[in-house]
């Protein structure tokens, strides 16, 4: 059984069908890069997987549990699947440490001392142990994004969804965030990431998914997808020939 099983999912906004029957099985420890043109449905797919959008048809299951749209099931799902956003979305009224502690104490009811210990450990892990007391607006974009990663990790998820997590960063800050992701991948975290960092996708990912007009248009290991794109759409997207 795969860790994440996505079966024939469809998603429409009004009459606009954005996902047109997606199938994707993700094995534990896989790192999947999702690439494609703007509007091809990459974000929508990730958002459906952790229930930020409700699917119109099809089914999603994570670690054997079906995605059902009620608060209890959604909460159980979100404890297993974390999400990192393009715009970081840190809580501005809390320090970096507070950001990492909040969901532990509120959702998991972890005792404060323990939550703080976990928060320090997670911030250390992303190289920001010394920024525990800093507020988000005192941090650089790269640091904020690393805090967001620490915040998601503190919930001990079995998979992470990353939606263009370096796209809002200045070029010189991209590397520090990717380094953290690379490390997570090496430690065996299951990752689904929408990215425009083709080098990174080639180096780190086990499979690449090319989305086009709401469908998985091509899928395969990076060597194959990048070196030998089969469809004209992917060839055009990669700018070959």
């Amino acid at each position, binding site marked *: 059984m795969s860790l994440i099983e996505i079966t024939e999912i469809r998603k429409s906004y009004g009459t606009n069908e954005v996902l047109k029957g997606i199938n994707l099985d993700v094995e534990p420890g896989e790192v999947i890069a999702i690439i494609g043109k703007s509007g091809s449905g990459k974000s929508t797919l990730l958002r459906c997987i952790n229930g*930020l959008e409700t699917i119109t048809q099809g089914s999603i299951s994570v670690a054997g549990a079906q995605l059902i749209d009620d608060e209890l099931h959604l909460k159980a799902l979100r404890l297993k699947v974390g999400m990192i956003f393009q715009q970081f979305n840190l*809580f501005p009224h809390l320090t970096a440490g507070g950001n990492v502690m909040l*969901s532990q104490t509120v959702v998991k009811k972890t005792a404060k001392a323990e939550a703080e210990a976990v928060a320090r450990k997670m911030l250390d892990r992303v190289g920001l142990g010394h920024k525990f007391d800093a507020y988000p607006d005192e941090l650089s974009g790269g640091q904020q994004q690393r805090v967001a990663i620490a915040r998601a990790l503190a919930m001990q998820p079995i998979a992470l969804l990353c939606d263009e997590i370096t796209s809002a960063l200045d070029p010189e800050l991209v590397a520090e965030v990717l380094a953290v992701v690379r490390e997570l991948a090496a430690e065996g975290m299951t990752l689904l990431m929408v990215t425009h960092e083709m080098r990174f996708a080639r180096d780190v990912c086990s499979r690449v998914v090319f989305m086009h007009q709401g469908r998985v248009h091509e899928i395969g290991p990076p060597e194959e997808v990048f070196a030998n794109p089969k469809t004209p759409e992917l060839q055009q997207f990669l700018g070959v020939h």
Partner: protein
Amino acid sequence: MIEFSTWDILRNLLLATRWTILLSLVSFVGGGAVGLLLLFLRISKRKAARAFAKYYIELFQGTPLLMQLFLAFFGLGLFGVDVPAWLAAGMALVLWTASFLAEIWRGCVESIARGQWEASASLGMGRLQQMRYVILPQALKIAVPPTVGFSVQVVKGTALTSIIGFVELSKAGTVVTNATFQPFTVYGLVALIYFALCWPLSKSSQILERKLNVAHRNH
């Protein structure tokens, strides 16, 4: 005829001012509580709850406070319920205040970026937890100046309750005028007292607004 000194007039007015202050406080605190409830309904996931709060707010904002006072006072009387003036005044003002505060606060909650809802949801928080720990702490900062500013409207709104016979500052002004035949002095003093109540409120609203804008933006 008895002579009234200015001091006599002022003393009587100040005694009545207590009731204006008390009624304002009750309206503001009660209206705040009901308003918070309305706010939760207004942004609820349930359509019926949202619709109820929306129509409530439209109804109370779309009719004059005076009519609401009349209805609370005379309307319930029709059903054989004898409502004392203070109760009708308090009730109408609480419900009226609630409708405005709910709408002010809704604007503040909706000004919080959608990403805050999404991030907290993706961490497994339920709707109430999101509100309690993520949204309201941020919305509250934005809400303070307009909320304090609106309290001025509440204080002035209490003046209308004189019409259904509640003896607060305005009503006392009328009574004292009838006894002294010095309308200019009396109403001049009444106006001064209202000003003394309202001015600090609107001033502090302005100061708070400036402070919260200047202060380190988010904390």
